[in-house]
């Protein structure tokens, strides 16, 4: 392990801890201090105050919780649904195979986050709608990957042996197929967490994520842009938070990919980094 990896582990751990801790309300992210409106960072207030006189440090911690909850929930749902669809699609084939491949192709046809933006816009803002919108877009990557991987291991001898012994299909899929295809799925999940952090912030930046007064790094940037000239610290802090967390998770993902020796992720159409990082 070299220094960047240590740093990445540290920042990711910090994100996890702060995200979980935000529920404990160490400092109130909604407390308004009218005397300190737009106050720049100074000794005593590390990151300054926003346009309503709320502590940016406290809101950053509250935003960590939002991004953590959304990212982990979205990736868990996407991974579960996508893996089940992908494995069963490759294993059973037939009409289900054809329909699932068609569905995968259709959902892949929407560029990046666009469908999620539309869905979040239609369902209305809020954390749960943001999670739904992102999961609707997120499962496809896992489904494609799980399908391709399952196809490549389906004919292995131990799978054939299990079938010959009359092992029930669900048991074969979970005990004999899943362990073989788990490594690339884990790598994909890692990159997808970084993608989901950006995606949540994007939705919140567009006003489609969490609603005020709840804090999100994306909506903090959205609020801060209006005071760019007088109070740039409102934009700098949450942006740096997103950037550091995403960079750290990507570094860990790269590291994990090398460790688990996953060569190609999704065939030739998938770039080395996740698609959503561009959004």
């Amino acid at each position, binding site marked *: 392990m070299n220094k960047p990896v240590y740093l990445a582990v540290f920042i990711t751990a910090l994100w996890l801890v702060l995200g979980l801790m935000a529920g404990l309300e160490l400092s109130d992210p909604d407390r308004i201090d009218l005397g300190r409106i737009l106050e720049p960072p100074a000794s005593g207030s590390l990151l300054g105050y926003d346009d309503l006189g709320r502590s940016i440090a406290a809101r950053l911690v509250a935003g960590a919780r939002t991004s953590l909850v959304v990212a982990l929930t979205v990736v868990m749902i996407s991974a579960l649904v996508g893996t089940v669809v992908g494995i069963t699609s490759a294993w059973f084939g037939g009409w289900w195979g054809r329909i699932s491949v*068609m*569905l995968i*192709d*259709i*959902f892949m*046809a*929407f*560029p*990046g*986050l*666009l*469908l999620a*933006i*539309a*869905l979040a*816009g*239609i*369902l*209305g803002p809020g954390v749960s709608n943001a999670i739904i919108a992102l999961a609707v877009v997120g499962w496809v990557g896992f489904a494609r990957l799980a399908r391709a991987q399952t196809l490549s291991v389906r004919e292995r001898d131990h799978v054939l042996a299990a079938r010959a012994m009359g092992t029930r299909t669900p048991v074969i899929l979970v005990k004999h197929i899943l362990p073989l295809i788990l490594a690339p799925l884990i790598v994909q999940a890692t990159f997808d967490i*970084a993608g989901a952090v*950006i995606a949540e*912030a*994007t939705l919140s*930046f*567009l*006003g*489609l994520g969490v609603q005020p007064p709840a804090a999100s790094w*994306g909506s903090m*940037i*959205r609020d*801060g*842009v209006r005071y*760019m*000239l007088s109070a*740039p610290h409102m*934009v*700098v802090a*949450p*942006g740096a938070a*997103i*950037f550091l967390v*995403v*960079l750290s998770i*990507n*570094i860990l993902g790269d590291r994990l990919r090398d460790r688990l020796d996953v060569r190609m992720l999704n065939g*030739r*159409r*998938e*770039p*080395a*980094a996740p*698609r*959503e*990082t*561009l*959004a």
Partner: protein
Amino acid sequence: MLNYLVNRLFTSIIVVIGVCSIVFLLIHLVPGDPVEVMLGESASPADRETLRRQLGLDQPLHRQWLLYLQDVARLDMGMSIHSRRPVTSLLAERLPATFILAVASIVVAVLIAIPAGIMAALRKNTLYDHVSMTVAMVGVAIPNFWLGPLLVLLFSFYLGWFPVSGMTGPLSLVLPAVTLGTALAALQSRMIRASLLEVLGENYIVAARARGLGEARVVLGHAMRNALLPVTTVLGAQLGALLTGAVVTEQIFDWPGLGLLTIEAIQKRDYPVLQGCILLISIIYVIINLLTDLVYVVLDPRVRLDNE
């Protein structure tokens, strides 16, 4: 070859129909009555009925779906609730701005990525390589809704070089294009470095060098041609992210393109316009991917052989 083309085209048509169907379903996901949401509670029952009939919402679902596909095939995407104009003409009005922005940011990306990627590959494991690849890693992780405002702060507010927002001439294109192009440049330069390194180890490069060709000829004439192949294919997928990024970037810079129209449609609950935007952007993406695949087939003879 012909088989492959026909097959690929056929799949794309099915995908387009599928995309239309999902976009069609969007309006049925509106919580409550979409007509009421669009017109507000104060609308008269007669107005509601008119809009309901106009949108075809009084018909059974499968009939609505068929009607929608028919209309889209005739390039009729309905009327904007807000501006009372055909959605198609709104889209046509906004498309050029997005096109200009997308092309400009690809130009920015390529201008940065090709030299940076080549230099990094040629000076593998030197300080230059490490620094530029670190910068690339950083570039990928910077969200463009953060980069954009920071660029505005520095280059518009402090230095006064470029306009803050709007589409007011060539200068106003610079900051949006850089904002949108940075992430693409970062990804591309990593790709170019990796694939160039792979190609540089090939025998024909050694042969070219043995023939006494200059380094520039070897790299640009022999190696790059093949190194660009994988770069071309990922470009298709990256363009998808670019189109989404345009939604955010246009919002930041008030750039009057499809992305801004999408967000305006969401804010005004103008669902026919929203459907039109999503449909148009997605179909552009499908076509780009189809073209990318075709270009790949043209560039790489091995793909042709594989499919025959």
